[in-house]
């Protein structure tokens, strides 16, 4: 599904290197988790994959089902099936959440040569998916993320993911700011989307999310590199011992 090779990234404006040779391969239907200390480059990796400005790729490649992502516009990456649930979802005053969702869904359908959804069909699908995430009608009417609580913003990200049906989903700390019940809801939302043709990359600091969304593979990222890869037990090890041992072990 996703194959990242030797990815080096620096900031465009300054001489600051953030990713120093990331290698990562995620198979179809797999769930991978990335953990790692603050500032190690996890969000940067997700931004670079989705095409945010301000970063310069100096080396390496990132392919989604064989297609080079790094040469595409952000909207093309989305149409190709990539989705990023933002660590900090963006507020857009003046643009209604519903308009936003519908524009996004139809833009992607158009890019893929599919027919646009009618207003009626769209409404039906949104209402149904919103309900399972306990997002009420009032929240759908409001401007995108404006005045949403932290948890509401995260649930709104998952709603977008459910509507867009991407093949490669990156969740950047979707668990942060969620109360226990909301975390369950979000995890259920994610699990409902799990399928043989859809992969997940879950960035998190906490084992508790991984209790609900069971990863196949866990990676530890530090200083811009994946320094260790293992099974679910690796997350448990981090939970109890922190990163010190792993960092020492790798040197």
């Amino acid at each position, binding site marked *: 599904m996703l194959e990242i090779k030797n990815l080096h990234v620096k900031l465009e404006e300054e001489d600051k290197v953030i990713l120093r040779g990331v290698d990562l391969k995620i198979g179809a239907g797999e769930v991978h988790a990335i953990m790692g200390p603050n500032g190690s480059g996890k969000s940067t990796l997700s931004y670079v994959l989705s095409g*945010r400005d301000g970063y310069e790729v100096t080396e390496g490649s990132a392919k989604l089902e064989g297609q080079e992502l790094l040469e595409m516009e952000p*909207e093309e990456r989305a149409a190709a099936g990539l989705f990023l649930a933002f660590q900090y979802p963006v507020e857009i005053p003046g643009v209604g959440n519903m308009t936003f969702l519908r524009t996004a869904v139809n833009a992607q359908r158009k890019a893929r040569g599919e027919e646009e959804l009618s207003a009626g069909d769209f409404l039906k699908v949104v209402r149904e998916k919103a309900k399972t995430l306990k997002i009420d009608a009032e929240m759908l009417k409001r401007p995108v993320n404006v005045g949403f609580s932290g948890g509401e913003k995260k649930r709104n990200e998952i709603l977008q993911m459910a509507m867009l049906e991407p093949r490669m989903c990156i969740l950047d700390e979707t668990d942060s700011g969620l109360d226990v019940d909301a975390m369950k809801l979000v995890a259920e939302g994610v699990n409902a989307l799990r399928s043989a043709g859809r992969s997940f990359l879950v960035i998190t600091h906490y084992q508790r999310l991984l209790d609900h969304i069971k990863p196949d593979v866990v990676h530890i990222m530090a200083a811009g590199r994946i320094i260790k890869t293992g099974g679910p037990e690796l997350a448990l090890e981090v939970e109890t011992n922190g990163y010190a041992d792993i960092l020492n072990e790798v040197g």
Partner: protein
Amino acid sequence: MALPKAKEDALAARLASLTLPAGKGWLASVRSEALSRLTAMGLPARRDEYWRYTDPTSLNAPAAPPAVRFEPGDEAEPFDGMDRLKIVFVDGIFDPAASDDLSLSGVTIERLALAGDTDIHWAQGLYGQLEARGQTPVARPLAALNSAFATDGVLIHVTGKAAKPVSLVYVHKSDTSDAILHHCVKLDAGACLTLLENGPAAARFSKVMEVDIADGAQFHHVRIQGRDHERRAVTHLFARLGAQAEMRSFTLTANGRLTRNEAVVELAGAEGRAHLAGATVGDGDFHHDDTVFVTHAAPACESRQVFKKVLMNGAVGVFQGKILVKPGAQKTDGYQISQSLLLDEDSQFLAKPELEIYADDVKCSHGSTSGAIDETALFYLQSRGVPRRRAQALLVLAFLAEAIQEIADEDIAEEIRGRLERWLARHGSTG
């Protein structure tokens, strides 16, 4: 006081190119009064404080600078599907074949060119009168010039609820046309009218509209200023509102080399409401100036000024807006916002918001901002699959929304949004 030599010369040159329309009735005398006002003031000059941001040279010039017509392609005419009474002027000349019959229930409509020769006319108390009142505290010589030399226009007297909107359509045909039109609208107590205006009108267009809104009357005005890239226009809207009267005026401007829209509104009776709004989109050789003066002369009135401009590729936007609260106008609620969205670094917005308050129990706010598009929001939309141009258009429409909200009729608001969307699709910035 004698005019400076430069002003004297400019005025002489301009007057030499104009002839006072013939006539002997009430109109002839108000025209000559207007001409005296003009002669005393002279034409505007860049050095005048009120013209600091906008160069009046091409508006003063004896001949209209040429302007080619813009071909709108297959886009429908504004207000196309609406049931309305259409009055068409081509290069400022009334077109009877294209216009509807002027009879409408609740309204009497006459052409200025045919109504001036009687000794007495209701428009006598309005034509040139609000314009003259509007000359203090700031001179508006181009409005006086219009009152003196207007060749035609409409005189609309609304006695009840107008059966449908009156729609003034200004067609531009000749590359060198120079049109001067003057309209008067009088709404009796409790009367209602929606007035629509659209079209570029001419290579150079001067228009004055004087509106007298009696107690409890409602005047809704929506204008779509023509898309011709090279046209020039100077327009004045003078309005006076009685007690509990309401006025809403919205203008969409897309394109035009030079536009100066002045609005001079006096809230003269208690609990009147005046909302003035504008949405402007300009690309390249575009200069757009909204100059607004709202006077609260009576207590408990509400005024809103909401002006938004989207500028790209060197376009220039100007806003000069004033709220004057006179002594005794207690419980005034005045609001003014002017904002620009600059889609690149070449474009600029010049704003001069002013408040002058002589009453103590008032609520007035004003604000002016100038900013770029929110790149983070743009990326967020793109990351959801929305193409950059479309994403930008969404954010631009969101920016303009507060102005468009001032339109009372939701169908018209929707038409305006559609027009803006199509314009934005054609003019996406390169950034």
